[in-house]
């Protein structure tokens, strides 16, 4: 009983100014969408991987809805299961992505958000899938159910090396021009390239700040948790990338985190372990999952999931369409596992992490197929302690709390012992 109550107390209590700003920004965004629904204003469905296109759409007066974010919100508010079941009744297999199922279910239940607000019906379904083949199908289904026109921007995968071929960029630019044509026809507005350049300049600033904020996790203790806290930062990154508000938000965030670095404050009472996390979290049990790590004083200092900004890329107002095309090609989901291994390895070494946690989610094969190989590479080839856990990002039926807790506890017990032995050995050497 005592142990349990102690366990409950040890978790992050950090709530800074940016959390209030983030809530206000996202609430404003939801309100705008509700109004768009009421007034039947032009709205496009968009994916997070292609969220940089929001800048293009804003210039043309088109709102953006993100089915992914809605699915995520439904899960985090523990509302996803009934919607998943509605989709399964319509023929969706238990074995397919539950993001898709929650979204389809919510659509047939009246197209409402997790807050109960009405979401606008899309007038354009714009899929920019960046490596996730399921997204192609998902948006095809949305178009079939809503009757809205569908445009799929084909994003060539980076087949080898770090950079896309010039032909890949040309191909995406050509498609963007087609999209601009469709949007101009839909709204009767011409794309103002000066406005687009201005938005790209804001985006560049947001992205520069974002990358600087991420570098702060190299500090000991890390000023924030790069997995659990950073997910909070991703909302404004997706929805407000090309805006002045976005720049202000990330300026404030950077200041706040730098102050915490100066004061040596982390999100936990004591940072005992530094971890890097691979893949999406179990949103239906987000808090529970976080607490499993907080209890051990484990703070994330790097994560693939919270890498929406390719570290080697910034939007460029001087190359508006080319840089809009390059973003969805360069994002990590559009690169091979070899590059994901490399990204994780750099996070572990550059940010002095003690371990890698792989959360293998059933829904997302983009992330999870090959996780066994990843574990082997990190633990055997690189000698980095690696823990693999399995559940789901949206479907609460795949989360087994007791089993998860056992595995996490056993892993950190061993890690703690290793640290203790290593500390002793060092003390002896120094003596």
């Amino acid at each position, binding site marked *: 009983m005592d142990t349990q109550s102690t366990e409950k107390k040890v978790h992050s209590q950090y709530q800074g100014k940016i959390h209030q700003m983030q809530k206000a920004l996202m609430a404003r965004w939801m309100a705008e969408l509700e109004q768009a629904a009421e007034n039947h204003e032009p709205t496009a469905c968009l994916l997070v991987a292609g969220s940089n296109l929001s800048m293009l759409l804003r210039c043309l007066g088109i709102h953006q809805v993100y089915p992914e974010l809605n699915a995520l919100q439904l899960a985090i508010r523990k509302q996803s299961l009934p919607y998943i079941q509605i989709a399964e009744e319509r023929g969706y297999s238990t074995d397919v992505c539950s993001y898709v199922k929650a979204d389809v279910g919510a659509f047939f239940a009246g197209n409402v958000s997790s807050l109960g607000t009405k979401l606008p019906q899309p007038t354009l379904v714009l899929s920019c899938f960046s490596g996730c083949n399921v997204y192609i199908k998902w948006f095809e*289904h949305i178009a079939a159910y809503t009757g809205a026109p569908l445009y799929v921007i084909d994003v060539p995968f980076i087949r080898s090396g770090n950079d896309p071929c010039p032909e890949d960029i040309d191909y995406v630019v050509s498609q963007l021009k087609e999209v601009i044509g469709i949007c101009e026809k839909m709204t009767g507005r011409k794309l103002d390239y000066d406005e687009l350049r201005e938005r790209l300049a804001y985006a560049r600033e947001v992205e520069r700040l974002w990358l600087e904020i991420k570098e702060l996790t190299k500090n000991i203790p890390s000023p924030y948790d790069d997995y659990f806290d950073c997910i909070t930062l991703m909302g404004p990154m997706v929805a407000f990338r090309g805006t002045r508000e976005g720049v202000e938000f990330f300026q404030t965030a950077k200041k706040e985190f730098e102050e915490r670095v100066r004061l040596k404050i982390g999100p936990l009472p004591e940072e005992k372990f530094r971890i890097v996390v691979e893949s999406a979290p179990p949103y239906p049990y987000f808090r529970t999952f976080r607490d499993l790590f907080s209890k051990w004083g484990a703070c994330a200092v790097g994560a693939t999931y919270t890498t929406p900004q390719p570290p080697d890329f910034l939007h460029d107002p001087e190359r508006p369409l080319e840089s809009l095309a390059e973003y969805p090609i360069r994002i990590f989901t559009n690169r091979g596992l070899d590059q994901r291994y490399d990204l994780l390895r750099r996070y572990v070494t550059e940010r002095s992490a003690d371990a890698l946690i792989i959360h293998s989610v059933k829904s997302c094969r*983009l992330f999870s197929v*090959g996780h066994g190989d990843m574990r082997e590479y990190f633990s055997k080839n690189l000698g980095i302690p690696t823990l693999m856990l399995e559940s789901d990002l949206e479907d609460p039926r795949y989360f087994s709390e007791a089993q998860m807790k056992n595995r996490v506890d056993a892993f950190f017990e061993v890690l703690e012992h290793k640290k203790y032995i290593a500390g002793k050995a060092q003390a002896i050497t120094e003596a």
Partner: protein
Amino acid sequence: MDFDGLVAQCREILEEHPWQEIQRWKEKTGGKAAGYFPVYSPLELIYGNGMLPVGLMGGGNKTEIERADSYFGSFVCSIVKSTTELALRGELQLLDGIFFHSICDAARNLCYVFKRNFSSDRFIEYIHFPQNPSSPSAVDYLISELKRIRHVLEEANGRRMSEESFKQSIHAYNENRALIQRLYKIKAESPHLLSTAEAYQLIRVGSALPPEEHSSMLRTALEEIPKRRVRPRDKIRVILEGSFCEQPPVELLEALDEAGCYIIDDDLLLGRRWFEREVPLDGDPIRALAESYIDRSRYSSVSHDWRRPRSERLVERARQAQATAVVFCIAKFCEPALLDYPLFKDALEREGIPHVMLEFEEKMWTFDKLRTEIETFAESILFD
């Protein structure tokens, strides 16, 4: 050789010694062999470069998965695991290269697992096929991708491919597809003369043979089929949908037949009859191949063409085949097929076409339950 002897020979090659055929070809020609994962791969380019294309169609129901499980999660389809198992056992040693394609997330990641583990003495290459064929720029993109693949093959071979050799290869595959199409015509017109299990084995053996040799076998089969003495039976005409990548066990196809279905059309080994028409031989062959892919491909759950939705094409295919029903035969955990199912189902229900859904795995070995299910389905239609 009579027809039954020919089918028995195919079955023996497939089950007992597919690699012997490849070994024999390599020794005879001194050429290299390149494996390809489903669904479509540019065989025309591989063979045009003097390499033998070898279809990697999974491990079948006789491959025990011992080590590959640890590389993947529990929710991954059989073919991804069995292909890895074959590589771990050294059974892919004869391959000097392997191609994977943009068909799904699992196959794509498999390519990179192969790159890390099995690329020391071969090339492993990923091909991105366009997913937006309605864009006028898709052909040019695909041309650039096919040129890149041509370069990979030429590097591996140490010599340039001549245009003549490329065109000869396109011609050989045009001919091969036309012969396969004749088998399907027999299935549609006189399904009692050629069962799907038989046709499947005749076609699948081509995964390990050069196209000319395979075509010669098919010609023999086509000569022998009309001589068969088989009586038509009272069965329902169905089309099979969903088996374009991982292949169901032959016993499953036989069980469907025994349960009262004539399978008039299917999407088994779809890559071997990917183009609806011949790839033109006049003009630039790379462009001809790219345009054929963009404008004259069969529909599939792994390629997306917004100009003609797949559910419309399924209905059209069922109507053309004069099929009474559609049997979905989908590999467990196959996301492209499972995600297409709800829209397919809605379209068939709008058109009043009955359908039934089966899930299979490579390792399946009992078919009684499935046979009963299909028997009930077929009877409900026959006696309606």
